[in-house]
């Protein structure tokens, strides 16, 4: 098997599960100062997949992120998982949306050796799912998204792509290619504190956004948020009561009525 040089795009995102989000003073964003940041879930699977491919075939894994110094935490995590190099693109005063992020990533990745570029399907904070496709376009690579199985052979990569209704599409792409990875493609390894401490000694390369030679127009967000609000409380919730057997019957009846199940 020939060695693969793999680039993985990762993002540090706020952890929002079980958190009561509050819209900030600008009305266009949520307050993030008291949120805990974690690796974007999809990216975690992408990094694991990249590291496994490297362990099987040899080669290198380079993790790339767009973000400030605090976001280096996510890169150290990648290094602890087995990435060889880490690159942080410092956005400075830019406010990167998916389009700007893709432009920055493309400019930084283009000069790197890459047989395969992996990203997550989407990010947990913005949920747009556009960076993978835009980045592939800019790098001139074939692109597949929602990849939940990946095997690399000499003639290219064999993929399975998750479709609606539990269907799968099986396809093959030539390499180099860009693949957006779906959660569940693997079981990401545990990253120990010792591992992260060791990784903290490795160097992280920082590239200033301004040094990438992009035109000012490319660094303007294409998507402008006008306002943000919490969904109003709606009707429709029903509290069921009774013993477990009766409850189960009630639930099954409701599910039938709503067409959730036919049994």
């Amino acid at each position, binding site marked *: 098997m020939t060695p693969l040089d793999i680039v993985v795009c990762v993002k540090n995102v706020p952890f929002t599960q079980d958190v009561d989000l509050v819209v900030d003073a600008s009305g266009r964003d949520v307050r993030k100062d008291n949120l805990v940041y974690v690796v974007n879930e999809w990216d975690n699977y992408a990094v694991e997949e990249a590291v496994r491919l490297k362990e099987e075939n040899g080669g290198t894994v380079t993790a790339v992120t767009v973000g400030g110094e605090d976001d280096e935490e996510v890169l150290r995590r990648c290094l602890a998982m087995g990435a060889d190099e880490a690159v942080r693109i410092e956005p400075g005063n830019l406010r990167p949306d998916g389009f700007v992020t893709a432009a920055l990533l493309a400019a930084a990745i283009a000069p790197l050796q890459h047989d395969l570029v992996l990203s997550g399907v989407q990010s947990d904070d913005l949920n747009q799912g556009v960076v993978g496709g835009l980045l592939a376009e800019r790098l001139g690579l074939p692109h597949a998204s929602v990849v939940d199985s990946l095997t690399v052979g000499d003639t290219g990569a064999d993929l399975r792509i998750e479709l609606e209704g539990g269907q799968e599409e099986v396809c093959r792409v030539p390499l180099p290619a860009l693949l957006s990875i779906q959660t569940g493609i693997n079981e990401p390894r*545990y*990253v*120990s*504190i010792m591992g992260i401490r060791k990784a903290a000694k490795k160097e992280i390369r920082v590239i200033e956004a301004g040094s990438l030679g992009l035109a000012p127009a490319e660094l303007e967000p294409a998507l402008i948020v006008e306002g943000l609000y919490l969904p109003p409380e709606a009707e429709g919730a029903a509290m069921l009561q009774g013993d477990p057997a009766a409850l189960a019957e009630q639930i099954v009846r409701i599910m039938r009525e709503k067409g959730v199940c036919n049994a």
Partner: protein
Amino acid sequence: MPIERIHFWGVGAVPLFYVLAALSIVAFAVGVYLRVSVWLSARGSHKLRIGPAGVAKLLADGLFGRRIFQGDFTAGVMHLLIMWGFAGLFVGTVLSTVDHWIVHYLTGQTYRVFSLCMEVFGLMLAAGLLLALVRRYVVRVRRLDNQPRDLWILVLLAAAVVTGFFVEATRLAVEVPRLAGEAPAWESSSFGGLGLSHLLSSAGEAEAIYPYLWWLHAVICLGLVGYFPFSKLFHAIAAPVNIVVAGPAARPAQAAGGLPESDETGTEEDEVAAAPRFAFADMLAFSACTRCGRCEQVCPSASAGEPFSPRDFIVQADSYVRAAGASRAYAGARAKLLRRGSAAADLALGAAPAAAPRPSPEQIWYCTTCRACLEVCPVYVGAYQPIGRVRVAEIEDGSRVAPLLVTALETLYRFGNPWEPSKRKRGEWPAGLDVPDLTAGAEAGLCYWVGCTTSFDTRAQKLARAFVRILQYAGVPFGTLGQKETCCGDIARRVGEFGLFEEGVEKTSGLLEKYGVTDLVTSSPHCFNLIKNEYPPANGPLASSALASGAPAQSGAPAQGGAPAAGDGDGESRSPLRVRHYTQVLEQLAAEGKLSATPDGRSMPQSSPRVVTFHDPCYLGRYNGIYEAPRAVIRSLEGARLVEMPRSRADSLCCGGGGGRLWQELEGEKKLGEVRVREAAATGADTVVTACPYCLIMLEDAVKTADLEGTLRVMDLNELVAESLGLVPEEE
């Protein structure tokens, strides 16, 4: 003609005997060297800490095999017979050599006494071997997994004894008639051989076969000497060493796994190593194990039919470290020969010894770290300690960690608890109760360390609410650290996440120091044990150095295993921080009469007395020797009668919740907790009381799955006390 010890009587080529003897001694020395070099290959300290307690244990457990008798008297008798028979004959051979080479003293009366002793030792060995063979192959004692090597060593020893007696018999068949009348009845001290000598028809026949028998006996015995360090007989050397060294007094700070001593800094510098790094003490323990299988019988996991075996783990780990040692030795020898230009190096050494597989990573998560294996082991081998070492390696590697545990550890890292992704919710359990917050300026002598599980689990929260009501009732000023409390590090410690453990220690120590806590009481025996026994001394260096050097400190830990615990485990630690489990506080309150139901003359609504049985939590009992405190509290209550389960106190059966098992999806035939609640129900008790949030959750769960709901109630000791005091019962 005086009677005397005769040497090399008519056996021919005596020099050949010395050549063979030299060979067997060389084999013995090489074998011992190999085994010891494996011990010494352990990273970290190789210091043997020998104290008076260790020597006392050596006398009781080594010379008299005390713990072998426990629970299996026949085994104790068998071992004593074989050990003393073997040792006696060995000493006899040495004395005989002295007689031959140095001073000829085995004559007359001395010789008669000597002969008598040899006769007795020989018969002891023979009887012991017979007993062993019967136990293994006739009675078939279940815990013994008979392997060819077990039979082989018994047959070899038996052959040595039988040929020995026949050599004696043939000699007597010639000697007795020859010396008849010269020394009256001298031969009666060799009664065994004398009896056998009557089987021989004539002195001439005896004289003819004597040399053959003698050489056969000599070759078998010399073979045994050479084979000794390569066989399980090596335990005769390793076990005494382990008995002296093992024990919490000698091995602090690494009680249930973790890194070998003085190794923390090493791991940071070194390459990521997925191979387990066993400590010196582990290596000794591996060599001491004789696969007797007692651990297997008491292990909550193995005895419930789960695919885990503490014995097999030890055996596997032993062959792993020995294969690693052998391949190191092989590589060394090969390199030496190659340097000298010998092309036949590989030929001479044969193929490299096959590396034994390392202990299987799937198995190690079954261990509850309950310490029952150590409790029953005759030679003080506990599987949970080296298992902790394998866990450290597995966590470092990361790729085989159960998804549930990954989530729990990541939650622990970010939110300071393994249960919920929220720091804020930690403070919600006392809703409606007036609990002073020490971090908000409240002052109190006593700080109640609630713990993660008790704070977040809805069932366990009730134990905290009951404890708070009791403290208020008894008028004890106390406070908590509110939502600032964090994980003490126990969970990380047990699953081998050493970095996270260190963080827990640092954060907790920092908190306790910041709020001037000097008197701490915990809900959980797990927090209690960790903070009391495994934290570095107050104001001492944190993390690496203190933890690593394992300052002999802190350990109010009980004498290990069968040795009686000192007091009730409430030994004063040297740190200014006093750490108690809540059972100790309740015991004190009960003794002071503050838990009496009618301080103000109110009449208590008293239902019919409960029949209560107490389930000893492992980290309260076996780890800290606290057996009496909870029982004293129960006895002090008017409405409760205490009955004991067959397995109680040091023999308590683990609920299955320890050692990080709550975050594993393990497969087994039956739940560990179910075994326990059935045992509790069988006592006729209507309530099983425990004193640990894990036990509470596990047993409550098991009562439901074992269909004992309505028959057996699971309560925390706090709940029982609160109920008997008529304090507002918890709404269901």
